[in-house]
């Protein structure tokens, strides 16, 4: 184990440079975000992830945000285990009928002020499941959504850009 740890110290970090704040995607998404919300948000956010009917593709990519390449925590963003500790709900999936109640309860359990990020095609508008009788057409039909992140699934960089818009101040 000592050898593995030592090698870790000697290697160059794998971490990618952060996406630029003037990246067109960040700018566009930030414009959509409520100005009042931006005032309230600091430089550190606790995120509670809720799978509301995803195929697990989005979860895999959200997981990847924690690896050495994306290192989410360097931005002050971290995933928390309880909605009671969360500032942001990161919701994936088209919101199935069977998850609707659980999603509403999770939202109610998060203290205000709170923001909702809809991640992935299903969460944005229902995606491939938009016409299903067993789903609503995306998170927006159930909760007020502040930021949407497109992609099926969004890549970790897409997710990072989307989450960073929560920090970008409007010019």
């Amino acid at each position, binding site marked *: 184990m000592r050898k593995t740890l030592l090698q870790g110290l000697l290697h160059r970090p794998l971490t990618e440079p952060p996406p630029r704040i003037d990246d067109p995607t960040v700018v566009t998404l930030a414009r959509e975000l409520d100005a009042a919300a931006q005032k309230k948000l600091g430089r550190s956010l606790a995120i509670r992830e809720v799978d509301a009917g995803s195929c697990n593709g989005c979860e895999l990519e959200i997981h990847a945000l924690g*690896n050495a390449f994306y290192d989410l925590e360097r931005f002050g963003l971290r995933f928390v285990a309880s909605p009671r500790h969360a500032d942001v709900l990161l919701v994936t999936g*088209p919101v199935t009928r069977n998850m609707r109640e659980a999603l509403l309860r999770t939202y109610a359990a998060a203290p205000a002020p709170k923001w909702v990020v809809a991640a992935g095609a299903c969460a944005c508008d229902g995606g491939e499941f938009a016409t299903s009788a067993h789903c609503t057409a995306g998170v927006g039909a159930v909760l007020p959504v502040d930021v949407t992140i497109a992609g099926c*699934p969004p890549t970790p960089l897409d997710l990072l850009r989307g989450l960073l818009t929560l920090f970008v101040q409007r010019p």
Partner: protein
Amino acid sequence: MTSWDDAVARLVDGSATLLSLWGEREAVHLALLHEGEVVHLGFACRDGRYPSLGREHPPAIRLERAARDLYGLDPVGLPDSRPWLDHGPEPTAYPFLPVEGEHLHQIPVGPVHAGIIEPGHFRFTCDGETVVRLEERLGYVHRGVEALMQGAALEKAARLAGRINGDSTVAYALAFARAVEQATATVPPPRAVWLRAVMAEIERIANHLGDVGAICNDAAFSLMQAHCAILRERVLRAAATCFRHRLMMDAIVPGGVARDLAPDGAETLRALLHEVRTRFPPLVNLYDATASLQDRTVGTGVLRTELARRFGAGGFVGRASGRDFDARRTPGYAPYDMLTFDVPVLSEGDVNARVWVRIKEITQSVNLIGQMLDRMPDGELRVAVGAQPGEGLALVEGFRGDVLVWLRLAEGRVQHCHARDPSWFQWPLLEAAIEGNIVADFPLCNKSFNCSYAGHDL
């Protein structure tokens, strides 16, 4: 074997293994594995009733409950009358099975879990720290896949199939494509067949790497997680370079593949194989030589061979408990009949055995991709799919186990499609494996099974 009674008798005496049971309006279907062959049987039940198989063969219980929810088919004699996938208007009103005894307490967990994972509910009944009984409640991710498939054009249906279960999108797309090709007597071009297998092995490696790290993380050994996650990321980046999508979604289509290997694909993959061959063995040594980690994984969550066989547990869950089955070999499909590979089987059935089967499978998949790159045929990527109506069934070995897809086509559209995830038979076994373990070992056991919620809930 053509009669319902005969099929039931063979399942009960263990000479056949249940592959799936599913419904449609006025019919119930059975798929069995008998002497290395997949047997599909359909039975009309115009009054919406059929004799329950689950009454005599428990692996069928949840499938029968699902068929009742989806198509109103009544399995006469099934002792469990509760819904399964349909949670109804009152999702919290679900009668869990009673557990009786002194000093017992219950721990409800989910559907929203503490980590970044799919939703499901676990109801633990414990005596102190020891789990006396676990009861699962699933169906939260039920999106109505089968209903959406009905009447869908092939292109739309293929996209849906690739999103039944995102971590196994390649396996599902492959199973769907092969079932369509069987139904329409379409022969995909050789290069497409080989590229599909390359994708399937990349998917297997990526998932195994992620889970080996995650299992160690659930034993509070985050160093393995950090290193495995780096390797997994490299695999996904190589997949994006080769097939223009990190998870390779929509790359496999009925009739062939939608994209060729990128011009620098072979080179990228060879570099990746080298990376995994060099970086992974030291991590395996680390896993094997860390006593505190071994203390958690060895002897934990034991699944008995007899149960694994009875439930036809697929993938590493079955193979870690002595069930020597791999759909790539039996019934087998191209191009694996032209390739050399081992199917690692262990008998201990604990968390450690499941980790080791996956470690060994990573090595096998790395070798398989190497062989395929050396012998990759040239030629066409895709042929037009025939328009004739028909039925098709395919069994594909995903990273988690055998994925089954059955479908019926008419007028170039899907009339009915059923997809059965390996998790259907693994979830109930998790309930058995956790019994007598401590609550704190549940995440470890659960991750070592890593059953799918989306694939199961449909």
